């Protein structure tokens, strides 16, 4: 069991977003979290990452409650891609990615050459290796997002938590990043939990889906059990049609 929640409750102010969430994610699974704006997707993600304490119940990683993990050991198990980031200082792209190696040797002052290799490989995987010496503040939104994902890869963890990884990416990079994540799950048995708004893209790579209603209700299960037109229409408050195209499913919102 990679990550699991037990009677998890999430509240923001007086609103209950998620109630009694009992949810298990196993090695090699790729989950998409789907729901409307404000349904609690990011709140759930931040709770899974340990950035926010649950309002009830608990989250455990490999059978051990998150709060019982030392932060550094936890950082070698799971990586988190935040929804947005602000760059205040003129760090270079390579420095940004190298900082993700922090949990592996917090005791030493400098990184070693292995870290440099890993960082460069991650940059190459995201096709941003030519930007290595650029100031991160001069990158475009999509380039910055790919650098952030490269940092996530350099952290080299079993569990990847991604809040809208496809944000700001152009079409080609959406497809290649999603393909890479799916490959990590399939071939290296990594576990991915991500948030995305593109249902077709999510359906293409996920093995499972978790739907959030935003009033406490939720639904989790294998992709094809959960991502059905009537269910999605209810959870997203908009009628949705599914069109088959070869082996793929295309999700089309009906016109108003």
């Amino acid at each position, binding site marked *: 069991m990679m990550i699991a929640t037990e009677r998890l409750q999430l509240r923001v102010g007086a609103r209950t977003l998620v109630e009694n969430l009992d949810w298990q994610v196993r090695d090699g699974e790729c989950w998409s979290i789907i729901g409307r704006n404000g349904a609690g997707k990011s709140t759930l993600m931040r709770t899974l990452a340990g950035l926010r304490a649950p309002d009830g119940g608990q989250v455990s990683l490999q059978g051990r409650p998150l709060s019982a993990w030392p932060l550094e050991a936890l950082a070698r198990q799971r990586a988190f891609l935040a929804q947005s980031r*602000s760059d205040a*200082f003129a760090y*270079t792209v390579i420095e940004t990615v190298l900082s993700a190696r922090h*949990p592996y040797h*917090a005791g030493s002052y400098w990184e070693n050459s292995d870290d440099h290799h890993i960082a460069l490989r991650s940059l190459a995987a995201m096709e941003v290796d030519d930007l290595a010496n650029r100031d991160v503040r001069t990158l475009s939104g999509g380039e910055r997002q790919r650098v952030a994902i490269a940092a996530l890869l350099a952290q080299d963890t079993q569990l990847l938590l991604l809040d809208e990884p496809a944000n700001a990416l152009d079409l080609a990079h959406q497809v290649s990043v999603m393909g890479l994540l799916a490959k990590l799950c399939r071939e290296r048995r990594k576990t991915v939990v991500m948030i995305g708004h593109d249902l077709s893209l999510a359906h293409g790579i996920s093995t499972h889906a978790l739907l959030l209603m935003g009033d406490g209700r939720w639904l989790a299960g294998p992709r094809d059990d959960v991502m059905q037109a009537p269910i999605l229409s209810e959870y997203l408050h908009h009628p949705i049609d599914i069109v088959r195209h070869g082996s793929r499913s295309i999700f089309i919102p009906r016109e108003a």
Partner: protein
Amino acid sequence: MHPTSANPRSRAAIIVAGLLLACVGSVLFAGMTGSVSIPLADMPGALDELLHRRADSLAATLLDLRASRALSAFVTGAALSLAGVMMQALLRNPLADPYVLGLSSGSAVGALAAMMAACAAWAVDAAAFAGAVIISMLLYFLARRDLRSGSAAEGGTALLLLTGVILSSAGSALVSLMLSVAGENELRGMVFWLIGDLSGAPLRAMPWLVLAAGLLFALRTARSMNVLALHAEAAATLGIRVGLLRKGLFFCSGLLTASAVTTAGSIGFVGLIVPHACRFAFGPDHRVLIPAATLAGGAYLVLADTLARTIIAPQQLPVGVITALVGTPVFLYQLHRLRK
């Protein structure tokens, strides 16, 4: 502009060695320069006399006076610059300076109140220190949410910054009040204190101890400061105890600032432009930035103070005038370059 690939270790060593030389050079220059300048040929002899604790010749006596003032300037500048680096990392804002949270106005209230009560010099220093400590404690109490373990605070350090700015303006109001009711003969000393002046600064051991402790903490957390500066709250997912680090930065920069203003009053701009210039020249990596900014801040204030006491000699200017006059155009230039 700053190569990262080659070997960061040797690059850092070269930078630090170069700046160390510049520091020694600036103190020697300060020792030689003044209304009576000591020729370079007399320096070895004078230094030798000083090291053997006897200052018989004129050169040695002058060097003794000037060098101790230069060393006070060095420790003050280094502390302010280091505090600036820490404050900028804490607030994730390269435009923050050690005074932004109101510590200097707190100590100004303390110092000026002691001057009005016609206290001795040591009591003025003690009151300045106490003022800074009281402001820090008030700030910690009011904004401790931002210094807790990042979990709840999504707004970063906005509460801390705003609380600091408000406390700072409350302090300024009290300072204005005291200036307007102060007697003529106290006024000059007060104004000099507010601008920042090293002429009366005694050479004490305390600021050096504070600087050493601050530097040790900063070097030990340099890696974590990089991660915090890059990722803010999300630094916790890379194994950083964000709350603990923020508290450490808050207290260390506060202590350094309090120690600096106690020595020399509120000298402006050093904590802002020196870290800024070092970031510009050597990059934002704190592992290089921390030692570089500390050394450069010290050397900068030594040179500024030498200029302050010689430029319209025999009259002496408060060093804060020089740092502000030099600092403003340098800062504007950097800002302009940055935004291009």
